[in-house]
């Protein structure tokens, strides 16, 4: 088939154009704004590094570090909880495989706002956990740190994003050739040894992709920490959002967002580089 320039353009150009106008250009605008400043509630277009200098202060560095820490907790927990599930689905079941897979995907279709809210009902002082524990007499009064804490934010983010980790991991684990595992058996590798030196290294690409799918949205989380976080567990998403609200500090907010994107890109680059299968590759 010999396509004309016109047909190629109509298929490829329209979607690319949309992404260029409403994604690439806005990102570039954000870069531009990060070097501008606000004076008398007006955004002034002159070059300054002041926004970035401001981020270097203790306050914002602290929030960034807390955001990274919580995101790492969320990612590691998701991996520890999700890996056995992905492994089970990919290699241990046959009959209910598709149904189980559907059950993992299903929660992804429900609103993250609603799923965040569910944790308010579960973790609050009047919530399911506290009232149940009090009813059986394990505690006298509600545990207050369950809600409005790093704990609440972490558990809700794990709940919301873990399925995104299971899916790529499942895909990679399912593709492992059974004959490689048989070879490992024949060479006398035990269960644990086979797992550690064959399956785990081969699943590294899935681990890397899956972890990114959890880490990235956690770093940029806004709704969940806003609703479940305590006054002392503010994450960077809330600070960024504030700059675009009544504060009207678009330039400073843009600079914060760019630093966040920088951290995300660096993490993505590192994990995709080291996430290649080792040993047997």
């Amino acid at each position, binding site marked *: 088939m010999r396509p004309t320039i016109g*047909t190629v353009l109509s298929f490829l150009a329209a979607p690319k154009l*949309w992404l260029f106008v409403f994604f690439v250009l806005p*990102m570039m605008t954000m870069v531009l704004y990060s070097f501008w400043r606000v004076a008398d509630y007006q955004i002034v277009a002159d070059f300054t590094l002041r926004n970035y200098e401001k981020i270097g202060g203790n306050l914002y560095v602290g929030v960034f570090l807390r955001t990274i820490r919580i995101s790492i907790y969320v990612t590691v927990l998701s991996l520890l909880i999700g890996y056995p599930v992905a492994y089970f689905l990919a290699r241990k079941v046959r009959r209910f495989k598709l149904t189980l897979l559907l059950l993992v995907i299903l929660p992804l*279709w429900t*609103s993250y706002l609603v799923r965040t809210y569910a944790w308010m009902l579960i973790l609050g002082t009047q919530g399911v956990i506290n009232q149940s524990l009090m009813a059986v007499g394990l505690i006298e009064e509600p545990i207050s740190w369950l809600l409005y804490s790093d704990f609440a934010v972490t558990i809700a983010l794990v709940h919301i994003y873990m399925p995104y980790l299971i899916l790529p991991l499942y895909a990679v684990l399912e593709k492992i050739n059974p004959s490689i595992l048989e070879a490992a058996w024949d060479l006398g590798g035990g269960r644990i040894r086979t797992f550690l030196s064959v399956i785990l290294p081969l699943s590294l690409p899935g681990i890397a992709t899956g972890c990114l799918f959890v880490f990235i949205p956690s770093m940029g989380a806004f709704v969940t920490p806003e609703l479940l976080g305590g006054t002392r567990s503010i994450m960077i998403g809330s600070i960024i959002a504030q700059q675009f609200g009544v504060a009207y500090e678009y330039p400073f907010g843009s600079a914060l967002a760019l630093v966040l994107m920088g951290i995300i890109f660096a993490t993505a680059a590192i994990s995709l580089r080291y996430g290649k299968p080792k040993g047997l590759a």
Partner: protein
Amino acid sequence: MRRDPVKPFLAAWTVLVLLFLFAPLFVVALFSFNESAISRFPIRGFTLAWYQKLFANTALHEALWNSLIVAIATVAISTALGIGAAVGIHRYGGRYGGALRSFSLTPMMVPRLIIGIALLTFYNLFQTNLSLLTVIAGHVVMTLPYVILIASARLVGFDKSMEEAAWDLGAGTFTIFREVTLPFLKPAVIAAALMSFTLSFDEVVVTFFTTGNDNTLPMMIWSMLRFGITPEVNSIATLTIVASGAFALVAEMSLRRAQVGSTR
């Protein structure tokens, strides 16, 4: 193979994890039938009053209407663009196919918050009036990668010789697309449309930064959660859970039936 002692543990773990994923959704549904106005566990009585109150709430009707407008427009645009992009990359991408696809998928790797505020600065720079139109533009950016991903996955199993046969019979590029490629892609189109609809209908962060005075349903839930929770929230939340679940099932069935069909 030998008997597997690890399997029961993995099975039990998987069941626990599924419980962890689903239990919170059931808790919300449970509270939506709570007679008491205070969301306190265990619930007291059984009532449909909150659902009735919901249907009588006119502010909610408007928000629902706005959400539907945005979601339907998003589906129309992102499905058309996304299917076109996937077919285009598949047909003409050649050695640039991988790069083109990666570019199309980048919005997935950017947090929604950043997509939202980047658009806001962009609109601010050009003094654009914020409305449902500016919301739709952002929602398409957010959903387009999912459409391309679903359509590309389906195209992997596409036999190019079918298109070539149509070409030899004298059909033009667009006729081939309409008569050969599109029917093959139909299950992916259905799944992608349902996915975009759900993503758009539930989206709050991108909407938050790109809307003017128009409220959408998630925006209303968001403000209810921040400024005084009423039991109505439980009912709206439950209804959205049920709707999303139904959409997910239809999408999944559509793709699965197609897969069975093509391997036969």
